[in-house]
C-alpha cells in the first residue's frame, strides 16, 4: 500500500470499516510513513468524539452491582492467589534453613561421636569448637508476656539460629521479622517462620558483634525496610552493654508503644 492508497482508505480505516486484509496492509504502511500517521491521528481524533453523539440513556441500577460483583470476585481470587504464592515462597524459604539446621545437628553429632570414639587430639580440638555454642535468652517485651526463646550462635558453622515460643497468632498479611541491633541501629535478618506456635529463623553471621536481637510484628506481607514499622514483641540482649534502652531511641519508643497498647 502506498500513500495515495492509504489516503483513500483513511476514513474507512479509522471508522473500522475495512476488511481484515486492508487493515493489516494499512497498519504495515503506517509503520513506515509519518505523513499518513499524521492523517490517521487527525481523523481518529474526530472519530473518538462520535460516541458522545449518542443520546443519553441510563442503564438499570443493577448493572453497577453486576459489574462490581464480577470485579470484586476477581479481586478476591487475585488476592488469594497472591497469598498462596506468598505462603509457598515462605515454605520454600523455611525449608531451606530447616534443612541446613538438620544438617548442622547431624554434623555436630557425627563430630561428637567421632571425637569420643577415636580419642584423637585433632578430633578433640574439633569437638571443643563444636561444643562451643553461644546462647542468649530472648523474652517478650510486654509485662504479661508468654514469649520466650533463645538466639544460638554456632561458631563452627558461622550461623545464628533464633527459636522463639509463645508468639501470638498473626492477623492477615502480618509477619514476624528479626532484627539485630548495633549502636541503636537495626538491621533486618529476615522473616521468622511460624509453625505450631514456634518461630524460627537462621541467618549466616555472628550475633556477638551486635548489642541485641529483636523480633517485631510487621504489617507484611513483605519484610519492612530500614527499621521496624510495627511493635517490638521480643528482645534479647547479646552483650551487657549500657545505654541500649536509652530514652528516645526508636527501640524504646517501639517497646513503650507495645506495652501501652
Amino acid at each position, binding site marked *: 500500500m502506498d500513500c495515495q492508497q492509504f*489516503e*483513500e*482508505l*483513511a*476514513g*474507512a480505516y*479509522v*471508522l*473500522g*470499516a*475495512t*476488511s481484515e486484509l486492508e487493515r493489516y496492509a494499512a497498519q504495515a504502511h503506517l509503520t513506515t510513513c509519518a505523513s499518513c500517521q499524521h492523517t490517521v*491521528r*487527525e*481523523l*481518529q*481524533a*474526530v*472519530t*473518538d*468524539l*462520535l*460516541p*458522545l*453523539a*449518542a*443520546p*443519553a*440513556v*441510563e*442503564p*438499570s441500577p443493577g*448493572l*453497577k452491582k*453486576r*459489574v*462490581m*460483583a*464480577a*470485579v*470484586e*470476585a*476477581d*479481586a*478476591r481470587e*487475585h*488476592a*488469594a492467589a*497472591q497469598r498462596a504464592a506468598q505462603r509457598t515462597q515462605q515454605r520454600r524459604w523455611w525449608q531451606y534453613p530447616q534443612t541446613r539446621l538438620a544438617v548442622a545437628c547431624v554434623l555436630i553429632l557425627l563430630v561428637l561421636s567421632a571425637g569420643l570414639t577415636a580419642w584423637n587430639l585433632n578430633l578433640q580440638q574439633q569437638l571443643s569448637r563444636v561444643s562451643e555454642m553461644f546462647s542468649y535468652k530472648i523474652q517478650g517485651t510486654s509485662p504479661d508476656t508468654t514469649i520466650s526463646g533463645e538466639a544460638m550462635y554456632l561458631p563452627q558453622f558461622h550461623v545464628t539460629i533464633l527459636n522463639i515460643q509463645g508468639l501470638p497468632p498473626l492477623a*492477615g*498479611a502480618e509477619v514476624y521479622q528479626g532484627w539485630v541491633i548495633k549502636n541503636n541501629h537495626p538491621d533486618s535478618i529476615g522473616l521468622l517462620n511460624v509453625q505450631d506456635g514456634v518461630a524460627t529463623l537462621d541467618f549466616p553471621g555472628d550475633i556477638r558483634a551486635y548489642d541485641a536481637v529483636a523480633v517485631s510484628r510487621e504489617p507484611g506481607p513483605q519484610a519492612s525496610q530500614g527499621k521496624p514499622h510495627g511493635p517490638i514483641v521480643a528482645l534479647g540482649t547479646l552483650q551487657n552493654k549500657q545505654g541500649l534502652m536509652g530514652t528516645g531511641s526508636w527501640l524504646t519508643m517501639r517497646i513503650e508503644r507495645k506495652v501501652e497498647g
Partner: protein
Amino acid sequence: MMRLPKRELSRSQQREPAISGEELSDKMLISAIANKAVWAMDALYQRYHRMLYAFVYRIVADHQVAEDLMQEAFFSVWQNAASYSPLHGEVRSWLTSIFHHRAIDYLRGLQRRSAVNQVPLEQIDLTENTSSPDVWNEAWLSVQRDLIREALMTLPREQRMVIELAYFQGWTHSEIAEGSRLPLGTMKARMRLGLLHLKRYLEKKDIRPSEQ
C-alpha cells in the same frame, strides 16, 4: 452473586487514596485498576458508565444486550488495564474503542449486515437507527454532545449515512458500496470527506479533537 466480606480483599484493593476517586485523573485510575484496586474501578464506572452505556445502546438498540456487553467490557477493562499505555491516546478513547469493538462484534455476530442488500440506502437515516422516536429530542448530556450532533447533522446526507453505517452499524465500506450499488471509491471518499468536514466544523466551534 453472593458478596463475600470485604476483608477478604487485600489492603491495597480496599484502601482508597487520600483524595477521592473523583479527583484522580483517568490515567491514575487506570494505573490503580492495573494494580487491582476495586475502589478505582468503582470510580471509573461512575465517571464513564452513562456515556458508554448510551454509546453501546446506540449501536445495539437493546437494553438487555447493552447491559450484558457493558458488563463484559468493564470486566475486560478490569483485567486488561495494565495493557493501557498513554502512548495509545486518552483513556476515554481507549475505553470507547473497547466498548465499540464489543458492540460491533455483537452486531456482526448476528449477521445483521446481510439485510443491507434489502434496504435502499436512501431509506436509512440516523434517526431511524436510534432506540426510540424521540431520542434526538432528548436533552443532551453536555454542550459538547450537542455540538457533535450538530456537526453530524451539517454533513451532507450521504456522508452522514456512511459514517452511521460504518461506525454505529459495523458495516464495511465494500458492504455499503454493494448495498447502495455505488463504486467502492465513492464510499471511501464519503467516509474520509465526512470526517474531515466534522473536524473543520468542530474546530470552528472551538472543539479541538485531541490527537493521540
